[in-house]
C-alpha cells in the first residue's frame, strides 16, 4: 500500500522547482487551485494543462513516477467522467444505449471535470514531492505571520503540522510491528467475519493509541527539557530567502490568471 501512494512523499532533488522558496510554491499552488475553476473551454484547459506539465517537467521528477502515484485516484476520475457522461443532458445526442443516452455536453463536461481534478491533484502533489515537510511548515508559518497580530497562534499551528508530518512514518512502522505481533497471536487482518474484523482492528488501534499518547508525552518532556517556550523570540536554523526566480514564477501565475480571464467564454 505504502508503495503506491506518493501523495505527501518528498523526492530529493536540486531542480528549479525544488529550490523555489516554499512560500512561493505554496502561493503558486494555492493560486493555481483557485484559478483552475476559471477554465471553461478547450483553450483555457489547454493553457492550465500546459502550465501544470511545464511545472512538473521543470521539477525533473520522472514522469512515470508521478503517473504511478496518480494511479490510486484514477478510479475517482473515471467515476467523475462516467457520472458526467450520463447525467449531463445538453446539446445533441451522440450515442444511445437503451435508456442511457450520451449528449455532446456530457462528453465535454465529463472530460473537463476529470481534467480539472487531475490537474488539481497533480499540482498539489508537485508541492509535496519537491518540498520537505519542514519547508512547507516554515512557509506556512511565514505566510500566516500577519495573523499573529490577530492573536492567531500561528507558530503553534505550524508546530502541530510539523509534528504530525514527522510522525507519519513512525506510525506506519509502529502499525506494521503491532500487526505482526497480533498476527502471531492468530489475528487475520485480511479476512474473516465482520465481528472478527472489528476485533482485529481493535487489537491494532488500542496499542497504537497508547503508544502515540506515550510518545507525545515523551516529546513534550524532551522539548521542555531543551527550553522550548513557544514561538516568542525564537530564531530559525533555516532562513527563508525570497529570490528573483520566485518572483518570476509568481508572475507566471499572474500571467496565467490574466490569460484565463481573456480566453474563458
Amino acid at each position, binding site marked *: 500500500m505504502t*508503495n503506491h501512494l506518493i501523495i505527501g512523499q518528498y523526492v530529493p532533488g536540486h531542480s528549479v522547482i525544488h529550490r523555489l522558496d516554499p512560500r512561493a510554491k505554496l502561493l503558486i499552488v494555492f493560486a493555481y487551485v483557485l484559478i483552475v475553476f476559471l477554465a471553461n473551454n478547450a483553450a483555457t484547459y489547454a493553457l492550465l494543462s500546459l502550465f501544470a506539465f511545464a511545472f512538473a517537467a521543470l521539477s525533473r521528477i520522472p514522469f512515470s513516477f508521478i503517473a504511478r502515484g496518480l494511479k490510486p485516484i484514477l478510479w475517482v476520475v473515471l467515476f467523475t467522467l462516467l457520472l458526467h457522461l450520463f447525467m449531463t443532458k445538453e446539446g445533441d445526442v451522440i450515442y444511445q444505449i437503451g435508456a442511457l443516452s450520451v449528449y455532446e455536453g456530457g462528453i465535454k463536461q465529463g472530460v473537463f471535470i476529470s481534467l480539472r481534478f487531475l490537474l488539481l491533484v497533480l499540482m498539489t502533489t508537485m508541492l509535496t514531492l519537491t518540498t520537505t515537510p519542514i519547508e512547507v511548515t516554515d512557509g506556512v508559518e511565514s505566510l500566516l505571520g500577519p495573523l499573529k497580530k490577530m492573536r492567531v497562534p500561528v507558530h503553534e499551528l505550524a508546530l502541530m503540522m510539523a509534528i504530525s508530518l514527522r510522525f507519519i512514518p513512525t506510525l506506519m512502522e509502529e502499525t506494521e*510491528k*503491532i500487526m*505482526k*505481533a*497480533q*498476527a*502471531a*497471536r*492468530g*489475528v*487475520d487482518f*485480511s*479476512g474473516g467475519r465482520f465481528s472478527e474484523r472489528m476485533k482485529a482492528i*481493535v*487489537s491494532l*488501534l*488500542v*496499542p497504537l493509541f*497508547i*503508544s502515540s499518547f506515550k510518545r507525545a508525552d515523551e516529546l513534550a518532556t524532551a522539548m521542555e527539557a531543551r527550553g522550548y517556550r513557544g514561538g516568542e523570540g525564537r530564531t530559525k536554523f533555516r532562513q527563508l530567502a525570497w529570490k528573483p526566480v520566485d518572483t518570476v514564477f509568481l508572475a507566471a501565475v499572474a500571467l496565467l490568471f490574466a490569460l484565463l480571464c481573456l480566453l474563458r467564454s
Partner: protein
Amino acid sequence: MDIVFEKVEHVYNARSPLARRALYDVNVAIRSGAYVAVVGHTGSGKSTLLQHLNGLLQPTSGAVKIGEETITSHKRPKQLKPLRKKVGVVFQFPEHQLFEETVEKDICFGPLNFGVPEDEAKRKARELIKLVGLSEDVLVRSPFDLSGGQMRRVAIAGVLALEPEVLVLDEPTAGLDPRGRKEMMEMFYRLHREKQLTTVLVTHSMEDAARYADEIIVMHEGTVWGHGTPEEIFRDADKLAAIGLSVPETVKLKQQLEKRFGVVIPSPCLTLEQTAEAIQQLFAKGERP
C-alpha cells in the same frame, strides 16, 4: 518440530527501486527440542530470520521447512495460520501488543483466535499467570495498570497460551532490570527443559547465549557466519571481534588468565559457576597465580 532453512533469501520491497536484500544463502537446521541462540550485530538479519519461523515473512527464494510445512514464496498467506499456533513468537517489547480490558482476556485472545473453547482458555490463563510469576488476582485487572515488567510477563503469557511447540524470543529481556532479566531467562529455560520446547533466542547478550543455548547461530551481513556449540563459537575471540561481536566476560577472563600465567584452562568457562570451578582447580593443582 525440526526447522530447516534451505538457500533462503529475503528481499524487502522486491522489484522496486527501494529493494534491499536482508538475507541470502541461509542454510541452517534447528533440531526439535534444541535451545538455539541467534546472535549478530544490528542489521545482520536476525529479525528477518526470526520472522521466517512462523510465516510472518516468506522467503523471496529458497524454502523454510517447519515440521511438515514448507514455506516458499508461492505459499498463500491464508495457509500459514495453523503454523502460527505451533510457533509462538515473543517480539521485542511484547507489552506493546496488549489491548484488552483485563489481563485474563488478553491472555485468552490468542487461544480464542485459534478456536480454543472459552473455559479452557480461561483455565490456561490461570495456569500461565502463575507460571510467569504473577499472582492470580492480576487476572481481573487492566493490563495498563501494571508496571512495565508485569505487562511484559502478561504479554509473554499471552504467547505461551497458544501452547506452541516452538518458542521464538526476540530480545525478551530488553529494558528490564538485572533481576527481572535473570528471572525471565530462567523461566524460559525451565519451560524449555520441562516441555521440551524448541527455543530460538535472539539476543545481544553473549552471556545469555553461552549460559542457556545448546547451539549458537552467528549472523553477519545477511547470512550465517557461524553455527556451532557455544564452546566452538567463543573459541576465537578475535574473529568475533572482527564482525563486531565479543565473547562472554567469563571467556575473556579465562583467556586473560591463560595469557598472563601461561596456563591452559581446559574448561570452556561459559558460565560464572564453570569459571569459578576452573579457577579453583588451578589453585588445587598448585599453580598459584
